[in-house]
């Protein structure tokens, strides 16, 4: 009796302990998820908090009097005169309209530094295109100098140091009050290539470069990967050699990406003499890198096609090739595509292999083909993050946001494809 009771008690007591254990176990799980979410949240708040100002540009609108005498320009059609003309002069005099007291050499210098370095180029381009405007007054909008932009956007923030003199700060305050200096959506960021001046720098060059590179990558990695997977899964004889290849493909998937960069440098640039910094080489290297991912996921997709389908097709008299091309590959396609998209998303965020083949470079012009110098999004972010100018901090974060948007889109596409097209048997 006592024995039995004590046994029931033991069970009851141990039950409590077991329930507690389970609760604890669940708590650990939840804590793990909370930590992951929290770090994600911190990362996102940091990036967005730093980066949203990257989508804002600061402009200054001035009535520029295109006075030929002040610019040493008599005829805007004359190329020699254009190259000798002083296009800063009308901008400075337009600013002096607001601050007539600024006439000394130092004052003029400080005044000049309110406007971005390429304002003069804008005036020149305008006159080159429309020489008849010489002598008229035009309302033009310029980008402000980087230091002014930092001041307007971040005055009072501890993270930035203001590099304007007190006089300049007073001027800028006054111009902001009058509505001459304004902030607007940063369209420059989406329409230009890199620049050494943060306000002139854009991400378009890098996006186009990434696009060209990815096209090459998918064009090579997808067909080669799928072909390899189909052969290995459907045709290859089961022998030592096949096993050996299989092991090596799995190993290849774990090789650090910089090794592929070394390979690309040696083979594509060294052996084949292809140029540095071009999307073709970048695409080839990244294709090699994503190949194992695609092969492995494609093989899994092929494996998941039930044998009954193959048998049914064979029973209807289909040849091996017909079975594969008409039935197995189409049914495995969603899985193959999901794997490829995830592989591409990985390749999109890769910088290390590109370092060696010269895609970590300062490239201003937007690439116009597979053989023109280009850089890619993550590299652009890296280049900005390591620049001294404060304006690049926000651009780097803005670039990260764009890269993340692409990544999330691609991953969402993979999930959607899987949900939409995958068939269950």
């Amino acid at each position, binding site marked *: 009796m006592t024995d039995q009771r004590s046994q029931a008690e033991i069970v009851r007591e141990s039950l409590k302990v077991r329930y507690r254990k389970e609760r604890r176990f669940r708590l650990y799980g939840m804590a793990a998820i909370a930590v992951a979410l929290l770090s994600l949240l911190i990362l996102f708040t940091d990036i967005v908090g730093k980066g949203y100002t990257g989508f804002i540009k600061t402009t200054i609108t001035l009535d520029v009097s295109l006075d030929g005498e002040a610019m040493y320009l008599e005829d805007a059609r004359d190329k020699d005169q254009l190259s000798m003309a002083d296009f800063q002069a009308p901008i400075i005099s337009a600013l002096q309209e607001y601050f007539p007291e600024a006439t000394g050499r130092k004052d003029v210098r400080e005044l000049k530094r309110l406007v971005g370095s390429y304002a003069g180029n804008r005036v020149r381009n305008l006159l080159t295109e429309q020489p008849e405007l010489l002598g008229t007054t035009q309302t033009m909008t310029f980008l402000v100098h980087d230091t002014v932009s930092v001041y307007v956007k971040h005055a009072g923030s501890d993270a930035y140091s203001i590099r304007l003199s007190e006089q300049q700060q007073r001027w800028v305050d006054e111009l902001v009050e009058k509505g001459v200096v304004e902030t607007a959506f940063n369209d420059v960021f989406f329409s230009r290539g890199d620049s050494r001046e943060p306000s002139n720098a854009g991400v378009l060059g890098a996006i186009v470069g990434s696009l060209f590179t990815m096209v090459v990558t998918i064009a090579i990695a997808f067909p080669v990967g799928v072909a390899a997977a189909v052969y290995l899964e459907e045709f290859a004889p089961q022998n030592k050699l096949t096993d050996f290849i299989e092991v090596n493909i799995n190993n290849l998937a774990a090789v650090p990406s910089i090794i592929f960069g070394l390979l690309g440098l040696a083979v594509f640039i060294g052996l*084949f003499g292809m140029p540095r910094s071009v999307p073709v080489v970048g695409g080839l290297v990244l294709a090699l890198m994503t190949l194992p991912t695609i092969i492995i996921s494609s093989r899994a997709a092929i494996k998941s096609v039930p044998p009954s389908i193959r048998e049914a097709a064979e029973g209807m008299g289909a040849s091996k090739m017909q079975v594969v091309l008409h039935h197995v590959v189409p049914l495995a396609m969603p899985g193959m595509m999901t794997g490829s998209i995830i592989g591409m998303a990985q390749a999109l965020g890769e910088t290390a292999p590109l370092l060696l083949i010269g895609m970590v470079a300062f490239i201003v012009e937007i690439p116009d083909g597979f053989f023109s110098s280009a850089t890619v999004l993550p590299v652009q972010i890296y280049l900005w993050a390591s620049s*001294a100018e404060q304006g690049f901090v926000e651009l780097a974060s803005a670039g990260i946001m764009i890269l993340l948007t692409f990544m999330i889109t691609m991953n969402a596409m993979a999930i959607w494809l899987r949900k939409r097209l995958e068939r269950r048997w």
Partner: protein
Amino acid sequence: MKLKSVVASVALAGSIAAVSAPAMARDTINIVGSSTVYPFATVVAERFGRNTDFPTPKLESTGSGGGLKLFCAGIGTQHPDITNASRRIKKSEVELCASNGVEDITEVKIGSDGIVIANSKNGPAVDLSLKQIFLALAKEVPDPKGGEKLVANPYEKWSDIDSSLPNEEIFVMGPPPTSGTRDAFVEIAMEGGCKKYDWIKAIKKQDKSKYKSICHSMREDGPFVEAGENDNLIVQRLEQDDHAFGIFGYSFLMENSGKIQAATINGVGPTPETIADEAYPVARSLYFYIKNAHVGVVPGIQEYVAEFTSEGAWGDNGYLVDVGLIPNPRKTRMEVVKRVKNLTPLTAAEL
């Protein structure tokens, strides 16, 4: 099997290359080299691209050594036209160049760059001597008890070295050995302080490699931390930690002058004037090298160099000063310009 697909893909790549390779006449100037010169060269390149009809040159930041290696690999449009360097070309590199057919190289000295030791403005302002820097950061230092022998660096606080220095732990962040800034810091500041000891200096004559290992080894027991190539990170750390010091290029000090201050060295602070006239001791010259054989083949090289060496760019009031370049004295500038105009090649005797 898989092998076949690899063969196929390589063959495919090969055929692409075969199609592309002959058609590679280039109209964009290719520049490689030092990450220290990169911020200056990119500004010039961008201006050059905007103000002329030539395309904007392409700039790769490969480090001085990496750049010279690429530069010296040969003549032909697949090789770069110009390389930037934060140190002078070495004799061995000139020989490497010559062995690959790159015979005529023109040297352009563009100015100087100071290396600063800085801390947060909330921290103490300090004045260091090169000897104190060496004692704070070297792996092995002369025995503080005296005598001509070396002991593992015992100093933990700045005040242990000299009572005039703050009573705080030594904590300095600096660039890794791959960086040109580190090379220059070690050669100028560390060795500069090291050879103040006559008996160490005497070792140089007997055993050069031993001398080097004494003077060039940074301590690894904590007070010196390698903080990666990104100087922005060092600056960020300095803002958060008032006791930390950082080693980086002058342009980063200039850009963040509101938040950080530089230590004076032998009483001299880093300013454009003191760096240019070499009163501030930790400074180095910056260069770029032109491959003369490419001039006239790749369009725009001479025009780019002319833009770089114009007074509006590298002069006392030029736009490169705004991004932190310390200009050469005017006399040097005139000499360099003359040299560049004639493309006078560098001779081995000059090195």
